[in-house]
């Protein structure tokens, strides 16, 4: 078993997926394709290139994949670069969920680039979960860029998480175009500590009539971390509805900023936003301490919940 698979099993608490016939999967270490498996209706083509891979996947019309597609990207040495160029098409009426694990547990000088381009056709649905672990060194820099277009009645749900360890540097840029009556949910949950530098930019363009979307960011900053969250929703479609939610909890000397941009270009559309930045919720802390937890234990429960 490749050591990356060991790390994946430890992180996901799931074993044996990469040998199962009923799962589609892909494991890439650096630019080495360790394992790959597709399923009827879902094609996964992956080619090794310098410093990374070119990945193309496509899902046939009306094909619904029951088990999540498990993807594992990683760099195990202390230094390295990984570039992922991903192109995906979900044809009409199809559905798939990806569980993408990005694992850089020893990184002192590791860079990970992701350029994604996803086309979700009419009535198709795509759930994309990306879970990161960057170890404790703070030397990992990641640049996830994603362009997603969603056709009529389509849906896209993204969950980006880094719940434990150091973040290092995160520069996340998502651009999502939502077509008529489509649905979008973007959720980011990230923990920063040490001198981590986190920049989240999620841009949602509600172009289609009756399109709906939310952007939610839950960020915890500790130590001297710097966090900036720029979330933008542009509502152009008739009766399109959007909401931006940003909750940032800071401790120690962390610094957090939330900059929501709400741009409404149609009188029948509506976009709202809420942002809350501050220390640990004192009432929550007291409630947990009244159950016998120490302040540190109570803080852990609250932060774990925020980033779950």
């Amino acid at each position, binding site marked *: 078993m490749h050591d990356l698979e060991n790390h994946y099993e430890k992180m996901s608490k799931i074993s044996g997926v990469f040998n199962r016939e009923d799962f589609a999967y892909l494991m890439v270490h650096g630019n080495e394709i360790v394992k790959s498996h597709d399923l009827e209706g879902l094609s996964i083509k992956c080619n090794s290139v310098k410093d990374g891979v070119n990945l193309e996947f496509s899902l046939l019309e009306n094909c619904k994949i029951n088990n999540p597609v498990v993807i594992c990207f990683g760099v195990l040495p202390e230094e390295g670069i990984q570039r992922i160029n991903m192109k995906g098409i979900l044809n009409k009426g199809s559905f798939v969920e990806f569980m993408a694990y990005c694992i850089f547990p020893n990184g002192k000088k590791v860079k990970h680039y992701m350029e994604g381009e996803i086309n979700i056709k009419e009535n198709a649905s795509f759930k994309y979960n990306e879970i990161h672990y960057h170890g404790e060194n703070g030397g990992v820099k990641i640049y996830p860029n994603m362009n997603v277009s969603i056709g009529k009645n389509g849906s896209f749900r993204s969950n980006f998480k880094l719940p434990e360890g150091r973040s290092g540097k995160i520069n996340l840029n998502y651009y999502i175009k939502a077509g008529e009556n489509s649905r979008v949910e973007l959720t980011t949950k990230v923990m920063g500590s040490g001198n981590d530098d986190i920049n989240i930019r999620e841009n949602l363009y509600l172009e289609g009539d009756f399109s709906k979307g939310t952007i939610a960011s*839950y960020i915890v900053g500790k130590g001297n971390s710097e966090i900036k969250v720029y979330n933008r929703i542009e509502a152009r479609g008739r009766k399109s509805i959007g909401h931006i939610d940003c*909750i940032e909890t800071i401790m120690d000397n962390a610094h957090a900023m939330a900059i929501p941009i709400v741009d409404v270009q149609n009188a029948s559309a509506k976009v709202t936003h809420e942002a809350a930045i501050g220390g640990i*919720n*004192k*009432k*929550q802390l*007291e*409630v*947990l*301490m*009244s*159950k*016998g*937890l*120490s*302040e540190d234990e109570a803080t852990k*429960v*609250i932060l*774990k*919940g*925020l*980033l*779950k």
Partner: protein
Amino acid sequence: MEEKSILKLENISISKDGKKILENISLKIQENEIFSILGHNGAGKSSLVYAIMGIDGYHVDSGKIYYMGDDITNMPINERAKRGIALTWQEPVRFEGVSVREYLSASSPKSSEEEFRNYMESFGLDYVSYIDRLIDDSLSGGERKRIELASVFISKPSLALLDEPDSGIDYHGIKEIQNNLANLLPKKSSIILVTHQEEIAYMGSRGAIICQGRLDDIGDIDYITSKFKNKCSRCQNA
């Protein structure tokens, strides 16, 4: 009588933002007793139980709190909890991402799933439907109240402080809880029940009226509820 008291408040006074909110309160709560504290809104009932629990902002200016004979006046909140004091909050807090199981585990880390089931069901919560639910705004205030009650009782406290346990729960739910309450606590445990409703106060055998931050009267529950129903002697509020 002295040996059996679980809690003794000795002339406690509390100020908040420069204003006295409790003045010279003295009380003794016996072992294996449900003691009701009646009072109108803003009388200082909740402040009294917060002071007993040791909540920040409700530390006593003067006076002493004795629990099982020990002076706990300056003891931190979590130490009081470890000694067996537990509080149900009037308005249970939401916890983003924290499940009912995790919340109950925080109260009672050693409890089994079977115990979670029993205590949840004692408070009208179906185990299968609720155990993995998050304690966030997807739950109503009444549901969170039941979870709060379960979390307190599962810790098997020696002294349970119930701050308006009826708020947010319908009449049938209250009756159900009333019927179960006595069976849920270990022997010799006591309850301080804060309420402004006489029928809830009747769960206790003794009680007190708090008015304008002072102890107005203390006595058996018939006497106290009857007095509260008519006129409080301090403020003359009916």
